[in-house]
């Protein structure tokens, strides 16, 4: 058995004969190809990735044309598969990869921002009250209010919050939960939203790395095209 630090790896598929691989590989494969980012809490899958990292890299590269990546953020490691820069590998067919929706992109950015707001907190919990505060009181409150409610006022009816904020957030959170970017927590006392932002939310930042690193250049170029 080799691990991710060992460079001497047999570039073949003989590792499939090992009992632990046979037991957990099917689950791991489904999770990775579904887009999930895997962290320590998925113990057996994480262990498999740790123990057979190089073999699995070879497997995904040869059979799918994908990269198996490992990243460490805030002392926490996570694994996921991604396309190489210029191609979508064996998942070129549109049914086999997924563009984030515009709603997911927007809410993803809000969540990434919230992650940084709580950067020094070990458990980055978010409740509906935090989202409400962000919309009502943050520096961006005017933009939020215009976008979510189409009018700027101090507060809104409960039904409006439910329909215009809670509903879209919940549908995005369900998807992000599947990707491993957040973990939905048990809701208490009639709470509508309660989740933890996980380190893999940084993957969203990575998707927009070019735009974030060169923001001025990006925004100028983008506006000139409109």
């Amino acid at each position: 058995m080799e691990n991710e630090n060992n460079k001497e790896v047999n570039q073949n598929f003989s590792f499939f004969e090992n009992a632990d691989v046979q037991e957990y590989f099917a689950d791991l494969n489904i999770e990775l190809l579904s887009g999930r980012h895997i962290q320590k809490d998925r113990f057996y899958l994480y262990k498999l990735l740790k123990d057979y990292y190089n073999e699995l890299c070879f497997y995904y590269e040869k059979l799918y044309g994908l990269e198996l990546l490992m990243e460490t953020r805030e002392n926490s490691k996570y694994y996921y598969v991604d396309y190489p820069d210029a191609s979508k590998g064996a998942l070129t067919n549109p049914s086999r990869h997924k563009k984030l929706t515009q709603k997911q992109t927007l809410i993803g950015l809000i969540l990434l921002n919230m992650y940084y707001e709580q950067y020094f907190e070990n458990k980055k919990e978010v409740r509906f009250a935090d989202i409400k505060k962000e919309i009502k009181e943050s520096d961006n409150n005017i933009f939020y209010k215009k976008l979510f409610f189409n009018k700027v006022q101090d507060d809104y009816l409960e039904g409006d919050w439910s329909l215009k904020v809670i509903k879209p957030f919940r549908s995005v959170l369900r998807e992000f939960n599947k990707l491993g970017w957040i973990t939905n927590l048990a809701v208490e006392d009639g709470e509508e939203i309660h989740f933890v932002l996980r380190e893999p939310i940084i993957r969203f930042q990575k998707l927009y790395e070019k735009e974030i690193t060169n923001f001025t250049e990006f925004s100028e170029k983008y506006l000139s095209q409109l």
Partner: protein
Amino acid sequence: MDGLLKYYLEHPREERFKYALTDFALKFIKLIDNKLYSPYAKFPLRDTFKKLADFKASEIKNIDDFNRWYEFNFEGNSGTVIIDHLESLKDYVNKAIDALNIYINQDQYSALKTAENVSILFEKITAKSEEIKDTLLISNSLDEEIEQVVNYFLNRKNSLPDNKTLTQKEAHKIFREEYDRAVEIKKKVDDFFVEVEYKLGQLLDRSAYASTQLITVQDNFKNKSAVRINVKRLLRFTLEQATFSKKEGFTLPEKFPIKSVVSERFKHIGLVYYKEFGLQKSYVIEPKTNEAHLKSQVLKLDVELTRQENTAKWVNHFKKQLQEEKEIDFSNYFYDIASKENDALIALKVGFELVEFARHNKEYEIKIDREIPESSLSQNIALWKMKIIKK
């Protein structure tokens, strides 16, 4: 004012136009004051707790002593002090994390100042948590003493004999209640320390994480800060670009870059596994014969058939006789049939069928004499005298 007058305000005696706070209101203010300013946090935690740990089981002579110790010394005194220290520790941790959360939004000079302030807070956090940890160590010896007190009440409860007098039964009831209360106090003290340890653990985890993050960020402050600021700018930019319509929901202009993630869909379909396809064979299972049961049933059937056959023979015989002799005294033949056939049931059936025959036939009459003849007395079945007469 009327509402306040009931609980919070009162007129001082003989001064109808003045108002004063009630004792309840003063207590309430004290409660809020304690909550806001944690005054006990200023008390030396180690010393206060050491006094509490000096508690000796031998000092407890009855349940009132133990109740008093719990309510005044533990709950009302040292317990409050430790909770206030914990609250003030939480306050330091929150302050440190709040300050750090804006740290990477700042320019390098302000960030340096923040880091300095936070490091002072971290020193306070370390000192306070050490103090709380010490009290948790002291709590071990306290736990042993409390265990002894509980055992004392347990032994007293068990000291009475199994067969108790009425007075002993009364005493046993009281001892049992006292023991239950002692156990309850022990549980409350245990729960208190478990809770303190858990909360302390949580606060220390938060503080350790924040401190590690600070070290990592300090190493790469410029880069981290630039990313943080640009994430904020990208969010604002995206909010400016986004629109909402009922039909399409949230939309971004076509030129806005939208990213892709790997997403192979998996469908799990559960199929039943068949070894062969085509029409399924239907198997007929041959029933097994239970020979013994079959034999007994055949025998039963034989007996019944013979009985019916013989009954029919006798009935025909008597019908003929009736034609010839015009009268039959069946009671004379009954025992004869039973004896010849060795089956009283045949005799009964013959009699029954003859009666039925005569009843439904107007040419015949049945005459029953409700006297049991002497010949019938010695038999198992007694019979009235019964004649069938042809009119």
